[in-house]
């Protein structure tokens, strides 16, 4: 029978196919100039990529342009996919590079590693109680106020259907660093919620 845990969170897209195989097949067809395959690829990945990019850049128009560039890169470079990662993490990694290039052009930094390295380690910390009291709408609002790097890692871990190793691959950092970054993001989220709570 069916594993009740399969459907919780990470999207799968087809019932009768291995999505990974389908994705790889789609890329093969895209590499041969198949327009329908490109359309299918967009249907399957476009919205998740767009949501992730929008989470990082916070501007719809810019996010749309980045997704456009990403999909153009897929169209042009489908042959470069070597199957060493999932197609989802591959395309998100492309989108991340496109995002980084765009933000660099705006003289903004998407990831400040020095800042991230200074963040506290594991454990809930004193602000955890703010998260314990928070409503979902408050959390959603607070996430918008996080630094881009924190929004990025949260989006990858919880919004893109990627596993921790895949998130690490996209970010080109060790899994342990992903965990550290996630914890730092949550701590920052707690802090924002705590400040909002004190101001109420």
């Amino acid at each position, binding site marked *: *029978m*069916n594993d*009740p*845990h*399969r*459907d*919780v*969170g990470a*999207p*799968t897209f*087809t*019932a*009768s*196919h*291995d999505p990974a195989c389908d994705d790889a097949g789609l890329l093969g067809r895209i590499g041969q100039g198949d*327009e329908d395959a*490109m*359309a299918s*690829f*967009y*249907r*399957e990945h*476009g*919205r*998740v990529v*767009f*949501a*992730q990019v929008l989470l990082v850049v916070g501007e719809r128009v810019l996010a*749309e*342009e980045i*997704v*456009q560039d990403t*999909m*153009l890169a897929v*169209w*042009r470079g489908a042959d470069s996919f070597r199957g060493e990662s999932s197609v989802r993490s591959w395309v998100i990694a492309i989108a991340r590079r496109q995002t980084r290039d765009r933000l660099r052009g705006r003289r903004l930094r998407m990831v400040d590693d020095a800042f991230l390295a200074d963040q506290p380690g*594991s454990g*809930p910390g004193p602000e*955890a109680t703010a*998260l*314990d009291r*928070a*409503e*979902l*709408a408050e*959390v*959603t609002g*607070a*996430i*918008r106020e996080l630094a881009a790097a924190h929004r990025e890692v*949260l989006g990858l*871990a*919880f*919004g893109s*259907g990627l*596993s*921790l190793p895949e998130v690490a691959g996209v970010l080109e950092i060790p899994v342990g660093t992903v*965990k550290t970054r*996630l914890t730092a993001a*949550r701590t920052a989220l707690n802090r924002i919620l705590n400040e909002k709570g004190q101001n109420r």
Partner: protein
Amino acid sequence: MNADPADTRYPHLDLGDLIAGAAGQPVGDRAREHLAACEHCQLEANRWNLVADGVRGLAAAAPETAQPARPRRTRQRVLAGPWRRAMLVAGSAAAALVLLVGVGAVTGLVRVHLSGPSTETALAAVTGCTQVEQADGTLEQVNGSSLVITTASGQPVTVTTTATTFVSMSGPLLSDITDGASVMVRGNSSDGTIKAAIITVGQPFSAVNPPGFVPVQGTVSDASTAGFTLVTSSGTRVPVTTSGGTLVVVPHASPGQLQAGATIVAVGHAGPDGTLSAQAVAAVSQLPSGPHIRESVKVKDCSPSSIEEALGAISAAPVSAG
């Protein structure tokens, strides 16, 4: 886990387990057992779940369709056509809640004989498994565990089910959304409220997973004709609105729940008396109007799980692409 649960020096879940759990990815049995017994880890899990819910809420609130401008670089002009087409297709697909169900073309027909006079009818072969066949048509009546359907050619076919037959149904079945029901909601979020596009009732089912919507799981509370409150595992209460366009999927239904007039797709073994002994049945109440809708079933292999997933996907997909 950090260590054996019995080891009191490192009694708590590893951060990776907590994150995987919040992300909806599988965690080990030992981790689940520990979580069930450890208040500290439950609290941590609830915090991560709330963070994950917040991220998913933002993702769900993202506009349905990105509509970027045409490619800017002149050297890429050749790409504008396919790209524009991809966007158009994607846009209409999102609007129509098209699901990628992986159905293929009908690869052949298998003639079987029914019991009555002039009762030859056609059952379709099932791509991926030659051991089973497919019948589809409109549900006329339910007799206990048997379904009587009318095929496109007007032939009645009896589909028998057993306790092990996988029966799924879908449609505007908002009456199935009742207080206490465990559901998975997918839709767009605005100001903390989810406008439900598709709701899965009961046990989660991987086949029900349209691209673009991030699932939020919980229990129904305060159900009304306009919506309900979704209570997540972390105790978060999320307002959910429903409408006539909300697709409700019950992946594990019983024959008695099926409604006359629904389009039925059944896969099983054809008996000598013309009946189809079904391994799986999908009942869809929202297929586009028309004289007949044929769903060609494609499975990975002949395993029950493959057949169930293929039929579950059909039940979850009002396959009209608009």
